[in-house]
């Protein structure tokens, strides 16, 4: 079934948003409400319900985020649930955390999508962070269904380099072409901020909510 039809017929009304002190929790909640999806802020790993999809937000430094996820037990629980089939979407730093590691830190990532985040190396006319609206190209499937345009808001200094092309869901040009969305089975990543990207982000989140 098409995702749009699935969204309209959906049985899941609840998205779990991981609250570990790193990310735009408020804006994700606001946008989910706007598209008619309830969200629950999850403060403890044991509160996670395998039957509801999960969003892992993230703003800030890689090691800081991983440390919090590890110490709170979220890392192990997320790995368990994602491997068990629960849809998981990592946003911005949350996407980079899905990988094996990052040049920004020394801790291991969640290792749900093989790959590593690297610092942008760009010509001088491209400021870092990459901040502003940009297009996601080569993205005709999955999360990007039914989008009039794939236009999203980005803020980041590191970008994800997957181990295999199979994990690429979308790419973006900013001086270089980099991977802006990834996917491995039920695990998804968006380098941009759908919760800050008008109707394009709304549609993407609707698609994610319909995936299960």
């Amino acid at each position, binding site marked *: 079934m098409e995702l749009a039809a699935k969204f309209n017929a959906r049985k899941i009304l609840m998205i779990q948003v991981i609250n570990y002190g790193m990310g*735009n*929790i*408020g*804006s*994700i*909640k*606001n*946008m989910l*409400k*706007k598209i008619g999806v309830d969200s629950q802020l999850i403060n403890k790993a044991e509160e996670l319900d395998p039957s509801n999809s999960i969003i892992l937000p993230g*703003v*800030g*430094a890689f090691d800081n985020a991983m440390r919090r996820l590890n110490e709170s037990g979220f890392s192990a629980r997320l790995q368990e649930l994602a491997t068990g089939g629960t849809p998981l979407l990592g946003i911005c730093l949350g996407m980079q955390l899905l990988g094996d590691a990052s040049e920004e830190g020394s801790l291991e990532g969640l290792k749900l999508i093989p790959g590593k985040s690297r610092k942008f190396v760009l010509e001088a*006319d*491209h*400021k870092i*962070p990459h*901040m*502003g*609206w*940009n*297009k996601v190209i080569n993205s005709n499937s999955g999360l990007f269904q039914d989008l009039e345009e794939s236009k999203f*808001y980005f*803020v980041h200094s590191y970008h994800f380099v997957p181990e295999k092309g199979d994990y690429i869901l979308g790419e973006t*040009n*900013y*001086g270089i072409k980099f991977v802006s969305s990834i996917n491995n089975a039920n695990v998804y990543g968006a380098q941009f*901020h759908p*919760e*800050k*990207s*008008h*109707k394009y*982000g*709304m549609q993407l989140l609707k698609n994610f909510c319909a995936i299960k």
Partner: protein
Amino acid sequence: MISYRVIPVLLLSEGGLVKTEKFKKPVYVGDPINAIRIFNDKEVDELVFLDIDASKENRGPDFTLLEQIASECFMPLGYGGGITTLDQVKRIYSTGIEKVILNSVVFDKPKLLEDAAAEAGSQSVVVSIDYKKALFGKTKVYSHAKRKTPNMSVLEFAKEMEARGAGELILNSVDQDGLMNGYDVDMIAAISEELTIPVVACGGAGGIDHLIEAVKKGKASAVAAGSMFVFHGPHKAVLINYPSQEKLSTIFS
């Protein structure tokens, strides 16, 4: 693709929106929530809200209003006005506003800037610098809240803000505010060339040509404006407006 953000700056005063001239003569231009709905429809790049009363009245942000604003905004959003503590900064982030804008507080509490950047990363902390020509043509940092301003040039101050962790700088010319006859391009260029963080031009925009000038000649990373997006026509009739996405996609190329 390099994108240049075009950002309406909306001034909050007594619960409504106003627009000033040279930081004076506030004129009521409407209701914030109504304006947001229009800017949502126009798919605005980003919005900035500044509470111009808070610091003057020595009070903190109006969180009830900020929650209403954030719940309607589905684009990047910055807020400034009356922020003096890290707790306020955290509370602003938790409402769904991802950029805090610090202004007069950094004159004597620059540590708040460092703490906010450590908390959420530099990209979430913006410093806005208001500046004005003083006697003998010297340009000085200006304080709307009548605080003691730093004894250094605008450039030196901008560099210090960058060094302390600001992720972005809004450079606002008091002399150009509300005049709609163009940005202070020389100053924008002088600051942009010396800084690595994005500089947002503000003060004086009256039309698309001014936006282009700030980017091409001023090397601004983003352009902000008030009057241009809330007034229409020679008599400045209040009309919330924003260039079409089609138009915006062509003007900077």
